[in-house]
């Protein structure tokens, strides 16, 4: 038996937690429990992002999703969780249809995940270590990018790798791409294929949406004061 790959171990841990609590969101009938399960599932997903080397996205997932969006959702739960709305049962026919739908989707998506051989990281950890130790120049020549090859073999041999994605991501949002200074597509200006316009659009979009949401969600009591008791139906 090979040594335990701790990267794989933590991946399996976070993946099991994320998937189990996502299924728990579906199966739970109590809306408050659903919100709690969703928090755990999204937090475990941010752990998966950390393991994939996307540290900034993982931190954003924790801060915006778990810290912002879910607090909003829980406020929605608390403002509407009253009596019969806390636990609403679904009929049996709906569950049969849902099982059919989920089975079809799983039969379509799960084989697709294993369809492309390049998506599987099939190196054996011991083999990679041996190859890198014995013939470093051959290992370098075999891989297109030296730095990423080193990083990949480091993951395969269970060595810690430090990633710094915050600065390239911030530069990419402002326009210059410091990570692709030599793009494959010759029509792109080198290093200038950033996301400044989508960034501006999404900034204005978020501002307008939040102002609109605050306008929509404000309390209107006029109907009550005019005609009390008409809304008891």
């Amino acid at each position, binding site marked *: 038996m090979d040594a335990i790959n701790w990267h794989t171990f933590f991946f399996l841990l976070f*993946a099991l937690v994320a*998937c189990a609590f996502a299924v728990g969101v579906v199966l739970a009938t109590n809306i408050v429990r659903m919100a709690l399960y969703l928090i755990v599932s999204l937090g475990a997903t941010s752990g998966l992002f950390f393991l994939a080397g996307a540290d900034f996205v993982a931190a954003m997932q924790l801060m915006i*999703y778990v810290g912002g969006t879910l607090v*909003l*959702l829980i406020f929605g739960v608390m403002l509407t969780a009253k009596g019969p709305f806390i636990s609403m049962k679904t009929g049996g026919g709906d569950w049969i249809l849902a099982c059919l739908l989920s089975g079809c989707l799983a039969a379509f998506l799960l084989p697709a995940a294993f369809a492309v051989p390049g*998506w599987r990281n099939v190196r054996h*950890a011991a083999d990679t270590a041996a190859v890198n130790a014995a013939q470093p120049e051959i290992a370098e020549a075999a891989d*297109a990018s030296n730095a990423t090859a080193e990083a990949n073999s480091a993951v*395969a041999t269970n060595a810690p790798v430090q990633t710094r994605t915050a600065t390239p*991501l911030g530069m990419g949002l402002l326009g210059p791409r410091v990570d692709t200074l030599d793009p494959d597509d010759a029509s792109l200006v080198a290093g200038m294929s950033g996301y400044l316009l989508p960034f501006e659009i999404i900034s204005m979009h978020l501002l307008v949406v939040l102002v609109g949401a605050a306008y929509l969600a404000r309390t209107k009591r006029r109907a009550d004061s005019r005609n009390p008791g008409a809304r008891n139906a």
Partner: protein
Amino acid sequence: MDLLSQPVGVSHYLVVGAILFISGVVCMAVKRNAIGVLMGIELVLNGANVNFVAFSSNFLRSDQGHSLGLDGQLISLFVIVLAAAEAAVALAIALNYYNNHSTIDVDRADELKG
């Protein structure tokens, strides 16, 4: 334990993303509570994010140079921000609906006359 000693690939992440996506779709389909439907949407968006991050990572595949690079992480950041915006508006609509109709059951929202 072959599963524990092998390095993780993109396929593993795609399986997690698929399970999150399927859970979200089923949650959107079967929940009668409008907030529950919103939680299903969050799960679907999160499953898409898992796929984007997996394809952008350099550590998960043996054929380097075919990964999305930072584009995938940038798009997943956009998805996170859009999910926040969508949750804000959808919750405002749900609260408005609750104020007007005194229920949060989406099955009884078949006449949206304002």
